[in-house]
């Protein structure tokens, strides 16, 4: 018997996971929503004469996010992945007259999205350390945005979901108007217009669902389990698809992404691209794929077509862009297309791949948008006609941009590889044409990335370009955090184990935790066993 085996056998079984028994709370999910709101309110009323406490405000925001991440990590470790039901549930009557309850809960996909939101939160604060003007207002709005995203993820009541869904628009729009680039007003209005349309569509869908299911309750356990006729399912699903398509975004509802991601400051870019936009795919998973199987089957070709058009358009548009932030904005659409392909696959593996793709795609989109925003700031130019040969002078940015490109393409070692393999493997059975089309779109995106890398990083330096400087420590950290998360999950999708054993080290494995609840959703789409071959 080896020494390692002796240690394992000496360990009491089951092995205690980090955080077990240390911290529990019946309002764990509420903490993730309301602590940022409380801190934001405190910051808003905090005196800040002549900017004296700006550093303190940034520290408060950072440690708030760090604290939430610590709470999330404990919740992640304590999460019981063998249970198909919601966990950490909270249910308080809110508007009983119309059947609204303050109902929160997470399953595997929800936990995944929370982890994504937590990572993005920390990254966004680190990416915002360079903000100098109206610091108090900025971080107040940033925390409110994070709170609304968390609320939308954990909501188990459609009314509550609608509230948080709509609430996320306001702080983000204000952040863009207040701290964005030259075309910030247009960008903010675009965001309000498209996401407002999506919110309106969601409202119509929720109300239709409410009416069709008897008008008693907005709770998801009632609405999403109601037996509806296929026609009503389709109508509601179409509206939900519109809502999701404006948020993710999917072609042709992508009009906001170019301006928003290119005009927003880096910290806001990361929140929009990484967490807020993933809510679109999350909505599709919950309300269409998870709840309306008949509509899911019928509309899956439409979803596959949208996915293929999104990925193809993103690659082509990025190829033609002469602005580095525009190119990054278009490329940030690619992971969304792959996520939707997985949902369109309506197969268990495709759905599982799509859920993982929400996490990895969010990180990849945030990374490409964030690194190009940083590059444009540091190089003092956004024009691809001016930027050239920056790799020797900006090695940190060069490596991060390369990792972002590899993450978008799904190169192994990064977690997007696992997600894309699962998505493609799951999609080929039911949507082979869509899968081929997305693969072709990925090839175009690869060319676009190669052109982008070649123009910006490689080649001879442009002597007429403004002076450049490499990313600062904060910028390296916030981008490195995103890249590190991609690498970690890519190397240990099932969590690191003590060598030679199956005992988890300190991470139970994202794939293991996210599987809770997926089997229930996916089992509706499991193919029947074909007759045995003659």
């Amino acid at each position, binding site marked *: 018997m080896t020494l390692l085996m002796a240690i394992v056998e000496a360990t009491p079984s089951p092995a205690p996971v980090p955080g077990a028994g240390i911290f529990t709370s019946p309002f764990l999910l509420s903490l993730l929503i309301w602590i940022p709101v409380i801190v934001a309110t405190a910051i808003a009323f905090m005196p800040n004469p002549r900017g004296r406490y700006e550093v303190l405000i940034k520290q408060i925001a950072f440690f708030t996010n760090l604290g939430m991440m610590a709470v999330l990590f404990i919740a992640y470790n304590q999460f019981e992945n063998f249970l198909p039901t919601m966990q950490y549930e909270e249910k308080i009557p809110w508007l009983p007259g119309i059947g609204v309850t303050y109902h929160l809960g997470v399953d595997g996909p929800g936990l995944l999205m929370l982890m994504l939101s937590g990572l993005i939160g920390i990254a966004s604060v680190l990416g915002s350390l360079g903000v100098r003007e109206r610091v108090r207002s900025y971080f107040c709005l940033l925390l409110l945005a994070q709170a609304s995203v968390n609320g939308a993820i954990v909501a188990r009541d459609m009314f509550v979901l609608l509230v948080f869904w709509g609430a996320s628009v306001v702080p983000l729009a204000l952040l863009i108007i207040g701290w964005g680039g030259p075309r910030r007003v247009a960008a903010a*209005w*675009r965001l309000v*217009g498209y996401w407002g349309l999506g919110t309106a569509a969601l409202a119509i869908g929720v109300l239709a669902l409410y009416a069709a299911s008897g008008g008693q309750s907005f709770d998801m356990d009632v609405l999403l389990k109601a037996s509806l006729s296929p026609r009503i399912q389709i109508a509601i699903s179409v509206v939900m698809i519109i809502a999701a398509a404006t948020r993710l975004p999917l072609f*042709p509802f*992508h*009009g906001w992404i*170019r*301006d928003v991601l290119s005009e927003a400051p880096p910290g806001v870019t990361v929140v929009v691209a990484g967490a807020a936009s993933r809510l679109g795919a999350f909505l599709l998973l919950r309300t269409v794929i998870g709840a309306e199987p008949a509509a899911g089957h019928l509309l899956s070709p439409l979803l596959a077509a949208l996915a293929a058009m999104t990925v193809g*358009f993103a690659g*082509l*548009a990025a*190829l*033609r862009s002469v602005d580095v932030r525009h190119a990054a904005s*278009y490329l940030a659409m690619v992971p969304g297309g792959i996520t939707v392909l997985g949902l369109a696959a309506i197969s*268990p*593996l495709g759905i*599982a791949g799509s859920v993982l793709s929400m996490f990895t795609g969010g990180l990849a989109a945030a990374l490409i948008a964030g690194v190009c925003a940083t590059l444009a700031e540091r190089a003092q130019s956004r024009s691809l006609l001016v930027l050239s*040969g920056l790799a*020797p002078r900006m090695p940190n940015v060069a490596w991060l941009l390369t990792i972002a490109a590899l993450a978008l*393409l*799904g*190169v*192994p*070692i990064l977690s997007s*590889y696992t997600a894309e*393999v*699962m998505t*493609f*493997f*799951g999609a*080929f*059975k039911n949507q*082979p044409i869509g*899968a*081929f089309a997305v693969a072709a779109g990925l*090839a175009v995106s*690869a*060319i676009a990335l*190669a052109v982008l890398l*070649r123009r910006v*990083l*490689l*080649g*001879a*330096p442009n002597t007429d370009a403004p002076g450049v400087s490499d990313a600062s420590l904060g910028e390296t950290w916030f981008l490195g955090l995103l890249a590190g998360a991609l690498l970690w999950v890519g190397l240990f*999708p*099932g969590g690191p184990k003590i060598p030679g054993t199956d005992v988890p080290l300190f991470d139970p*494995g994202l*794939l*293991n935790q996210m*599987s809770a609840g997926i*089997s*229930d959703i*996916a*089992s509706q789409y499991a*193919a029947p*066993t*074909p*007759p045995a*071959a003659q």
Partner: protein
Amino acid sequence: MATFVLALSSVRTRRSASATAMFGTVVTLLLTLLVGWGLAKRSTPFEAAYHYFTMSVAFNGPANFQTFGIDLILRADHLTVAALVAIEVCFIGAIAWHQVMGRSEPGAARFHAVLTALLFACVGVLLSRDLAALFGFWAIGGALTYMLLAHRWGLDAAASRSRVALALPFLTDLCLLCGIAWLYARYGTQNLNTLLPILHTNPGWTVRSLVVASVLLFLGVAGRLALWPFTAWITQTTITAPPAASAIAQSAWSVLAIVLLYRVMPIFVASNQQTLQALLAVCAVAAVVAPLLGLIGNEPRRVIALAGSGVAAIAAAVVISGFRNSSTTFAVAGVACVLAMAPARAAAWFAISSIANAMRTDDLADMGDAWRRMRASSTALLASTIVLGLAATGALTFGVTSRSKLGIALGEAALLIALAALRLFVATAFGPLRRRRAFEPDRVREVAPGARSSPYWLALAGAAFLIASLIAGWLNFLDGQKHPAPAVAAVAVWAAAAIIGFAVCALVYARAKDGALRASAVAGAWLGRGVSAIFAVVDRFLVAPTTGIARLLGDWIPEGDGALGRFATASGQLALASARAPALPLLIVLAVVLAVAVALFAPGVAR
């Protein structure tokens, strides 16, 4: 991997980076030989499995589809060991050559780190039995190959040419991924050990699904094997990539791709005969066209790339033919052919690069007299081109009959390969070396001793593999089956095809070297114009309209939003104005408008 980490983290000088990479590669070779020695005492291959992840995705449905997992299933058999030895020998030669000739290349630590990481990826591809894990290593190798070929970051030409080295193989790699995904979608497994036995027994299998999978897998293999027309990712980077990078990219990938082809052949066989016939035809066409294109144009490294592509196509044809006719009997001869070709190709690459570097030109027409001025490099070039020309002899001897259509086509290909290969030696070794602007022929010297030996040793390794490929015992060793010894007449026939090619080349170039080179230059210029014209047509009628539509959409949608916004603003202003307007005039105006509308639209009112 350890060497990669070391090279990336701690080495600072070019020499230490090179030494670290060499150390790691040599250790890997010794370990490979150790595994080979261990295999000699066993009848079964070594197998080991490491769990990457497993995930439960459904509670019902076919059992194969209820869980999904990727495991690292490693299998080392004789074929794996031989392929690894061939690749590692190429790596060692490349590092040794680059130590001397790559002094002016930037980023030594980066180069050697990527090189050792590529070796890691090659080992992973050869050992993996799980297709998803294999694709993982394959994709890593692809990304690293691009980084090697685009190594010269400061040059515009290098950056733009290396785009093809990313895009084209990526496209074929996606086909490989699609093929693996297609197989998984039908069979619920991507492990070759469990997949191959159930190809015809899994419920719901169809011939169509196997045909689609076969085509996709073949496309994936053909891209990395650089079969024509997928040669562009090598020929476009011949001048712009470091020679060591190009040599490794061609040699290593040809071995990896042919081994993968050999391993997935049972899937092709399980489809139908028509598919195999079609793939054979494709290989035969590629085998003939590639060396033919190598005769056009005077860029020497392009000639080697295309000649090697021809040999690879012959090897692929032999592998497919071997499985088509009598189940794995002679298919492994195709693999043995590539094992011989890979080191020879690298050797020729290094030798011609040394000569081209010394003569400061990449045009065969400007080269000459190397036999007198650079005897060692010329000799190495001669040896390697002879091995390259004869590399396919063993495969053809064992696998193809000379009386068949396939035999005639592949024989023609072998002749063209020999012709193209020896052309390099004859054009560079003999004839005058003319004075050019800023070039003095008398200053041409042999390369440093450290760079002279690599091509020799590689050519020797290639020759050893070539001789082995003619021996039945070697094939017995590779695939563990019994093969009858080849007939001497068969060997003579196929060797004669190559020798005729050599003889024709020697004759033509001896009589009219300048004329031949001029003709190939003109043909090359015409070919270049033709290719440019085709690219221009594709760009004009496909790429530009598509990207133009994308650009228009990208502009039209924001303009549409803007118009909607202006309309909303205008209607809001109108509403505001009407709210402020006095009520009576407004009512009168509204009444008039309504009356006119009713008059226009209601029937019988305005008569």
